[in-house]
């Protein structure tokens, strides 16, 4: 069973909620697909068992011993990545898209493509099961492919968890936004949970995230986090969900225990098991698992 937790807007509490679900589940494989800003390892401090290099792409590099500064590559580059400065042709590494065209059109063969190999995928065990996460090096691209690598590893780890009666649960903590890495995170999952908050920005981004998830033909449900910061807007969001035919998984009140738990490197149900937030999280999780099991039948 694969459940992805996404949000559209950042900072709605997606990772804290995913961590709580991980603590509540059995036979859990937790995959942090927010490869741009992976954070769950901070809470769960997994024992690293495996690390793999991820080649995020390639960048063009000029051999100045050969370059004649003819500028042909500048004319062909569509990413504004090549400029001429005082008679010297330069490649802006952060703008290079790795398409290879400059290397091909260079009459002197002065341009080589070099692998970007600073990104990593890390896998290991933590106190509730297995965990895998990606770390995209700053400024690198193709985060969607790293998400795919993380998900493949998560599936392999889940397949290795054999215990009768219950299927393993793969939880995917998604990145913010609606771009490529989000699409990679929700492709083919059994259920998409979207975490929102009662603000106009939260509602706007929720609508974009729902549109993407429905486009991918996924089952979707919504959690309104910190609902009591603006009860009227929370009602409006719930009404919009009903209208859009999206299930409400539940509402969670604002509480400082969420931050306290994080500071103490604990998930919320571990830190404050009897707090209202934990009670809500347990009932949402129970609903989520039973509705996923129902869908799968």
């Amino acid at each position: 069973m694969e459940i992805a937790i996404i949000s559209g807007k950042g900072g709605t509490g997606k990772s804290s909620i995913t961590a709580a679900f991980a603590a509540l589940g059995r036979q859990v494989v937790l995959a942090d697909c927010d490869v741009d800003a992976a954070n769950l390892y901070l809470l769960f401090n997994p024992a690293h068992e495996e690390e793999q290099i991820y080649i995020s792409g390639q960048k063009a590099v000029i051999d100045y011993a050969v370059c004649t500064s003819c500028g042909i590559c500048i004319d062909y580059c569509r990413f504004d990545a090549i400029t001429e400065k005082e008679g010297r042709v330069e490649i802006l590494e952060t703008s290079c898209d790795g398409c290879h065209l400059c290397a091909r059109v260079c009459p002197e063969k002065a341009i080589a493509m070099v692998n970007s190999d600073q990104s990593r995928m890390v896998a290991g065990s933590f106190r509730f099961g297995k965990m895998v996460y990606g770390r995209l090096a700053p400024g690198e691209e193709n985060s969607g492919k790293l998400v795919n690598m993380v998900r493949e590893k998560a599936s392999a780890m889940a397949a290795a968890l054999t215990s009768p009666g219950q299927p393993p649960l793969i939880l995917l903590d998604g990145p913010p936004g609606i771009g490529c890495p989000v699409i990679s995170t929700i492709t083919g999952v059994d259920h998409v949970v979207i975490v929102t908050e009662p603000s106009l920005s939260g509602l706007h981004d929720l609508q974009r995230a729902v549109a993407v998830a429905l486009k991918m033909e996924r089952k979707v449900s919504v959690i309104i986090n910190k609902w009591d910061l603006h009860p009227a807007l929370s009602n409006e969001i719930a009404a919009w969900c009903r209208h859009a035919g999206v299930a409400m998984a539940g509402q969670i009140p604002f509480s400082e225990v969420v931050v306290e738990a994080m500071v103490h490197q604990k998930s919320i149900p571990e830190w404050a098991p009897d707090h209202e937030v934990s009670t809500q999280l347990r009932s949402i999780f129970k609903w989520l698992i039973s509705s996923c099991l129902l869908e799968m039948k």
Partner: protein
Amino acid sequence: MERVSPGEAVSAGISLKIAVASGKGGTGKTLVSTNLFSTLLVAEHQGSLVDCDAEAPNDFLFFKGEAAGSFEVTQMVPVIDTDRCTYCGRCRDDCHYNAIFILPSVPMIRVMEELCHGCGACTVACQEGAITEKEVSLGRVSHLAVDAFHRLTEARMNEGVYSPVPVIKAAIREAGHTGITLLDAPPGTSCPFIQTVSRADYVVLVTEPTPFGLSDLRQSVETLKTIGKPCGVVVNRAGLGNREVYDYLTAEQIPLLMEIPFDRELAALYARGMVAASVDLSWREQFTQLLNNILTHYGNSHYQW
């Protein structure tokens, strides 16, 4: 170093781009950007705000104004003339995005437009003149004039597009470049973030005093160091969490520009799409102070004021 007010800065004919960014999403980038923009409005000096979070643009929700034009951002994708195509496979071999699929035995050739980055390598590779290109939409850049001297610009990527970068670049290029330009950056430290902050003179990083906030702040600072951008930090939701963020700032000698305490009233204003500095004098003073702090630190880091 003398303190320079935003007004003096602008009347001195200086244009300055300030990016407001954070590694972690939801730390308050938009809160800080919209409030800074509001202080520019009140100061009655020229300025603009560019919403570069093209995947989830929200800044327009906070201001009223007149639509001041918009345009489509496009990229080129190949169109194959199957009468001329010999199914040789050169275009497929040169495509680094696997966007061209060929079955010579059928024969069949397909362009998967959603994978195409528009680099033009296939057009160059084709020996038969069988490839032409057409434009497809990636998103839209829109302007909103708040008054004669202040404009908002929004980058909005279409749902399902591979990267927001082309739309972000177009929005920054077309924004007003006189006075102070605020860039509300996309979250993260990957390509969209770099493409935004590399176009700024100074970067304001917004964080929160939690382990997640600190971890993402560290990554943002390291990234800014590699591209040599000066930065300062705003700690949002101060009072929640712990002191580790402050210890980090001291150790790294990064200026703390402002602390915004966690405040239910501020959260409620923001939730309703209201800008605190527009409706509350005390918040207006605090954000004006932030702008002054930015100008002072920017001046100190560049010795040009």
